[in-house]
């Protein structure tokens, strides 16, 4: 299909109608929501699915023998299958529902990490990770007297693969890398990094929070050992996420949280643990969350992730070009391969002030360090403004952003 054909088929106005919140006004102006890397808005189908669950299906899962329990369990487990298919995992056993990306990473650190990382071992992450893919590893290194090693990026925000390869040592147990940077937009060459890591005998955990929403993710093709992502970043509800792990790895990992549902049998003398994936799902899960997340993934699949990716790339190029028209605006993160995230600084105006003026014009961007303080220090800025685009954003909204930034300059310079 040609670029023009697919552009014609992608009806963003029609898509916007599916998202009720986009019709609302903010401070008397149309909402221009450009904070999607923080969280995405939800289509009516996701909202309806959650309402339907609570109106017609709600019951606890896995334990009851009554009708509603069967219905709820079927819906919950169907959601697991939806996730499995969406990321092309081999088996439902490899899909663990968690509270989100952060919890998924902490699960791996605490369960796999505590068992497999010893004093003197190394954990290799990159200079542009989100705090959620830094701090858990720091905690582990402290506990185990292991060393955290940082793979550098160039001034464009790109991983230097040669440096990364050099930093893989005989002691590197695992690599932690973001699929795409929430602050810079850089899409990391994770497939190559995984191949290099495996050749070195190291595992790889991919922080996929900004992966799944923006591009096709095939965990078998990537061959990653763990992949973590959040429902609310991909048009689903908050409080739900996924840890994908290769079956043989998850099988060997000790339980993480103890409690109901992750057990087979309990006695005070001995407790045996449940099979995968339930071994890692203690307590009543976020049933509505999982079902809502699956509805979000279904919505994305229906539009087509490749179509969404193409739309976002078009917006990224357009918005970048227009933003660079502004005198004194500098984009932080200029990798050749980027997701639709634009971090910028404006000379003479602090991001906080930019954000406030934009807010008055109905525009939502994020300002600050974006949970990536080491990254901010690497690029020598205390904070940036960040506009992040999603499937329902438009070129007109990019124009509004530019107009409002001119307004900022009027106020401050």
């Amino acid at each position, binding site marked *: 299909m040609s670029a023009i054909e697919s552009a014609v088929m992608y009806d963003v106005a029609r898509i916007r109608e599916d998202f009720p919140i986009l019709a609302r006004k903010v401070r008397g102006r149309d909402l221009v929501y450009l904070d999607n890397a923080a969280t995405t808005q939800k289509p009516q189908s996701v909202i309806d699915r959650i309402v339907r669950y609570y109106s017609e299906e709600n019951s606890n899962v896995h334990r009851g023998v009554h009708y509603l329990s069967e219905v709820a369990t079927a819906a919950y487990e169907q959601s697991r299958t939806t996730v499995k298919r969406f990321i092309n995992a081999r088996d439902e056993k490899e899909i663990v529902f968690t509270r989100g990306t952060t919890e998924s990473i902490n699960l791996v650190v605490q369960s796999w990490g505590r068992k497999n990382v010893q004093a003197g071992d190394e954990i290799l992450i990159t200079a542009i990770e989100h705090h959620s893919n830094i701090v858990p590893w720091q905690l582990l290194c402290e506990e185990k007297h292991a060393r955290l090693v940082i793979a550098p990026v160039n001034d464009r925000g790109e991983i230097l693969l040669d440096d990364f390869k050099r930093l893989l040592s005989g002691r590197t147990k695992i690599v932690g890398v973001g699929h795409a940077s929430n602050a810079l937009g850089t899409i990391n060459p994770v497939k190559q990094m995984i191949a290099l890591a495996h050749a070195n005998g190291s595992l790889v955990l991919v922080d996929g929070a900004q992966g799944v929403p923006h591009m096709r993710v095939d965990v078998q093709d990537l061959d990653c050992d763990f992949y973590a992502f959040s429902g609310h970043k991909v048009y689903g509800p908050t409080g739900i996420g996924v840890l994908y792990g290769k079956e043989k790895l998850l099988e060997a990992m000790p339980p993480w949280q103890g409690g109901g549902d992750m057990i087979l049998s309990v006695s005070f003398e001995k407790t045996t643990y449940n099979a995968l994936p339930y071994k890692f799902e203690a307590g009543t899960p976020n049933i509505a969350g999982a079902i809502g997340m699956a509805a979000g993934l279904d919505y994305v699949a229906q539009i087509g992730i490749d179509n969404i990716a193409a739309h976002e790339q078009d917006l990224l190029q357009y918005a970048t070009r227009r933003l660079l028209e502004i005198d004194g605006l500098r984009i932080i993160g200029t990798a050749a391969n980027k997701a639709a995230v634009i971090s910028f600084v404006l000379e003479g105006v602090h*991001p*906080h002030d930019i954000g406030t003026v934009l807010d008055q014009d109905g525009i939502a961007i994020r300002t600050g*360090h974006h949970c990536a303080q080491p990254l901010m220090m690497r690029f020598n800025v205390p904070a940036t403004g960040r506009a992040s685009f999603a499937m329902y954003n438009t070129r007109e909204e990019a124009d509004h952003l530019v107009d409002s930034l001119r307004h900022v300059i009027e106020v*401050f310079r």
Partner: protein
Amino acid sequence: MSSTDLRELYQQVILDHNKNPRNFREIADAKRVDGFNPLCGDHYTIFLQMDGDTIKDVAFIGNGCAISKASASVMSATVKGKSKDEADRLFETFHKLVTGDTSGLDAAELGRLAAFSGVSEFPARVKCATLAWHTLRTALEGSKDTVTTE
């Protein structure tokens, strides 16, 4: 309407003090305290020189948003020559002003601080406005060297 709201927040006094902050320098031989807002990266160092109970000189360096910088600047001009107790009272007054608590506020006492009245409409910016004041208070109490808004 939105333009008016913005003008309420970014009044001329604030814009002026942001572009040309007063007492924006170091003081050798002074008590120094660092103040951070970790959420946004605002970071200032307040220098304080006392003469007995009176604030002889106060200055600051650092970086941050217009609200925080203007606040530090107006604060430095306002408290210079005041006693510690007067500075404490001004802090309480300022805090009430920016959090929208107008009970018992005296316009005459506020002086240039009144320019920050608009902050009360922007709750997310209260910490920007009060950072310098918190840092000053820590310097006056003499207990710590670092202060954060969290």
